């Protein structure tokens, strides 16, 4: 029996007994050499025979952890075995409990983490050390408020032969309560508190320490000592325990689960949950969940909105395309019905819908082209090309080619073959699959005297399957350009006779007349037009009438007096058709004036020239023609009645308007004829200088 004042091993003077547990009795002692207080623990005699003292000594001396006392010595004395450790100034949790202290959650959590750290260290040793007697009395709180886990039993290493544990009822894990037997005897005059020896079928493991720590925390939190096993199982801490949050309660309940398999399996797991306890808090989790919902659901909705908007945009474009196409189709129908004004308006609406789509511009060109207003076609087409980059706007090559082709046709009709070549060339560049583009390109090239290039284009068109009539037409044009008018005429005839295309047939007959004209065969011209008058449609009727009228006029120029009047009268008939249809050019009207003069109808000739004065008030040719007509009229009068005042007046007006042309030497034949007349009249003294 050790008492105060005893000196153990000549070094440790016993000061006081400060505790007793399943493992032994603990004393506060004074180290006589180091002059500091230490703790001396006398190992319970019941264990002594089971200990490997040398091994225990090595283990205990090597223990080093912030929350474990430092072991100094391991003594095998005659009266027992002693371990010497650091004395930790402060108080055990047990004393706090007994004083009625109410622990806060922060304190419990703080200490729980520190004890768990110590357990991680002990359990991680090789071999692992199981404390086996964690309880409030064995947890010291030092003066700085940190824990120190004391009174661990070195002999409880988790080796197969360590089958005995000393523990305290209530804090010991249920698996330790197998075949328990008391290890102390009642003492006379004292209340008997049995201490048990626990015989285990299997070795204790770290889960037992986890249970004991949980039971200790249970005590701190509830203020109630855990019921003594095995009679009563530890009930779970109710979730509504005041001052403690459910997260910590759940951790403690899991630590104290009756079934070791349902507990935390390692101290590290406990430590992790304690360190991340706020993540287990339902308020925290609820907040995290809300953030997740906000940052996932809303972006999903936004992505959905983008998808919806994009789909809507695509749909709108499709709908817009559809409406645009409908408008174009409707306008095309209006052109077919010759309702050009509404067609033009509809194309303009289509342009308003999609300003970069070329189809509507092509439609506009068709509107003007159908009205034979080629100047307008050229003006509109070139403006559109200058203002828009149709290629970059995504229009198809075929659509651009069609636009260029219509523009080329307009230039061709205006006999501006170089510009026609330019646009036909673009047409074939954009659409190399349309043989008609090559055909007309070849014809325009031949008209521009690029005969070799024209033949090359014709070969391409032929290779692409251009129909025979078109080949004949283009070939005839090339012959014409070469000056082979007879072959050209044969070719045009062949084209007209073999084609089923009305437009091509009309072109072939008109070109045939041109070949006859070049050969001086006016009868051929007249015969071709008169025999095929029903073939011509639209503007070609006007052209055919002009060609026929010119042929008759040319015949009149070389005929005798009787025939001249007859041919001139025929010519007048054809010219009047043109004039009455509103398609007479200035030159046509000049020719009509000439024809009227041939038949001595100066009144109608004068009327036409008066109309021309209104339409072309600044054209010197009009006044020159008036002067010529006036001279002709006076020449038919007797010399006494002749008066050349009007001639002089027209002459002076024409000369004044023709100043620019005279400087450049480009005065017309009408001016020159008028000037010759003036010379003659002056010479004959009809007009004085």
């Amino acid at each position, binding site marked *: 029996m050790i008492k105060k004042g005893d000196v153990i091993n000549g070094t440790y003077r016993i000061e006081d007994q400060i505790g007793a547990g399943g493992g032994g009795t603990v004393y506060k002692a004074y180290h006589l050499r180091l002059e500091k207080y230490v703790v001396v623990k006398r190992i319970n005699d019941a264990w002594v025979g089971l200990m490997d003292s040398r091994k225990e000594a090595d283990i205990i001396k090597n223990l080093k952890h912030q929350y474990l006392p430092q072991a100094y010595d391991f003594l095998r004395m005659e009266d027992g075995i002693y371990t010497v450790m650091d004395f930790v100034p402060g108080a055990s949790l047990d004393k706090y409990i007994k004083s009625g202290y109410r622990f806060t*959650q*922060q304190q419990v*959590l*703080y200490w729980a983490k520190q004890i768990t750290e110590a357990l991680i260290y002990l359990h991680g040793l090789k071999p692992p050390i199981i404390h086996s007697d964690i309880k409030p009395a064995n947890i010291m709180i030092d003066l700085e408020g940190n824990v120190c886990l004391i009174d661990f039993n070195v002999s409880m290493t988790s080796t197969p032969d360590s089958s005995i544990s000393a523990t305290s009822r209530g804090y010991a894990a249920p698996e330790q309560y197998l075949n328990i037997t008391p290890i102390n005897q009642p003492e006379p005059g004292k209340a008997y508190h049995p201490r048990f020896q626990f015989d285990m079928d299997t070795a204790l493991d770290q889960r037992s320490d986890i249970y004991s720590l949980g039971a200790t925390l249970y005590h701190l939190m509830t203020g109630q000592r855990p019921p003594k096993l095995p009679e009563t199982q530890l009930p779970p801490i109710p979730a509504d325990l005041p001052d403690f*949050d459910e*997260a910590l309660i759940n951790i403690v309940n899991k630590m104290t689960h009756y079934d070791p398999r349902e507990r935390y399996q390692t101290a590290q797991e406990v430590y992790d949950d304690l360190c991340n*306890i*706020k993540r287990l*808090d339902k*308020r*925290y989790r609820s*907040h995290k969940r*809300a*953030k997740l919902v*906000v*940052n996932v659901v*809303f*972006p999903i*909705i*936004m992505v*959905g*909105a*983008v*998808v*919806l*908007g*994009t*789909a*809507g*945009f*695509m*749909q*709108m*474009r*499709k*709908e817009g395309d559809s409406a645009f196409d409908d408008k174009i189709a409707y306008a095309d129908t209006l052109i077919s019905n010759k309702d050009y004004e509404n067609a033009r308006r509809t194309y303009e609406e289509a342009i308003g819908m999609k300003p970069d789509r070329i189809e509507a511009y092509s439609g506009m060109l068709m509107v003007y082209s159908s009205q034979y207003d080629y100047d307008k076609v050229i003006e509109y087409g070139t403006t559109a090309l200058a203002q828009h980059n149709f290629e970059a706007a995504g229009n198809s090559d075929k659509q651009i080619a069609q636009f260029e082709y219509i523009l080329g046709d307009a230039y061709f009709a205006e006999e501006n073959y170089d510009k026609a070549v330019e646009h036909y060339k673009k047409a074939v560049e954009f659409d190399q699959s349309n043989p008609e583009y090559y055909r007309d390109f070849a014809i325009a090239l031949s008209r521009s005297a690029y005969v070799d290039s024209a033949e090359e284009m014709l070969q391409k068109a032929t290779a692409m399957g251009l129909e025979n009539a078109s080949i004949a037409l283009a070939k005839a044009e090339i012959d014409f350009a070469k000056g082979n008018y007879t072959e050209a005429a044969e070719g045009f005839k062949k084209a007209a006779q073999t084609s089923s295309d009305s437009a091509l047939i009309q072109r072939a007959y008109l070109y045939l007349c041109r070949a006859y004209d070049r050969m001086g065969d006016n009868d051929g011209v007249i015969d071709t037009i008169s025999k095929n008058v029903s073939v011509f449609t639209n503007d070609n009727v006007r052209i055919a009438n002009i060609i026929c009228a010119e042929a008759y006029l040319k015949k009149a120029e070389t005929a005798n007096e009787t025939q001249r009047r007859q041919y001139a009268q025929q010519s007048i008939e054809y010219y009047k058709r043109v004039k009455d249809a509103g398609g007479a050019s200035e030159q046509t009207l000049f020719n009509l004036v000439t024809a009227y003069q041939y038949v001595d109808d100066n009144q109608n000739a004068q009327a036409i020239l008066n109309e021309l004065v209104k339409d072309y008030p600044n054209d010197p040719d009009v006044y020159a023609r008036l002067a010529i007509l006036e001279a002709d009229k006076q020449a038919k009068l007797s010399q006494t009645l002749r008066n050349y005042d009007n001639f002089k007046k027209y002459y002076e007006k024409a000369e004044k308007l023709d100043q620019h042309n005279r400087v450049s030497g480009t005065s017309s034949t009408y001016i020159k004829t008028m000037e010759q007349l003036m010379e003659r009249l002056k010479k004959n003294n009809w007009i004085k200088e």
Partner: protein
Amino acid sequence: MTIGAIMFYGGIALFAAALIGMIIANAVLSAKGKKLKELMKDRYGE
């Protein structure tokens, strides 16, 4: 109004609404988060 226009403008409106909703919700959650952080610190320490 065509279906395409309804989808397009609906998509824009939905996007704007979701964006505004997300901003407001995040602002509210951020304010709540600060309070919760203080509570967690008070309850569980550092």
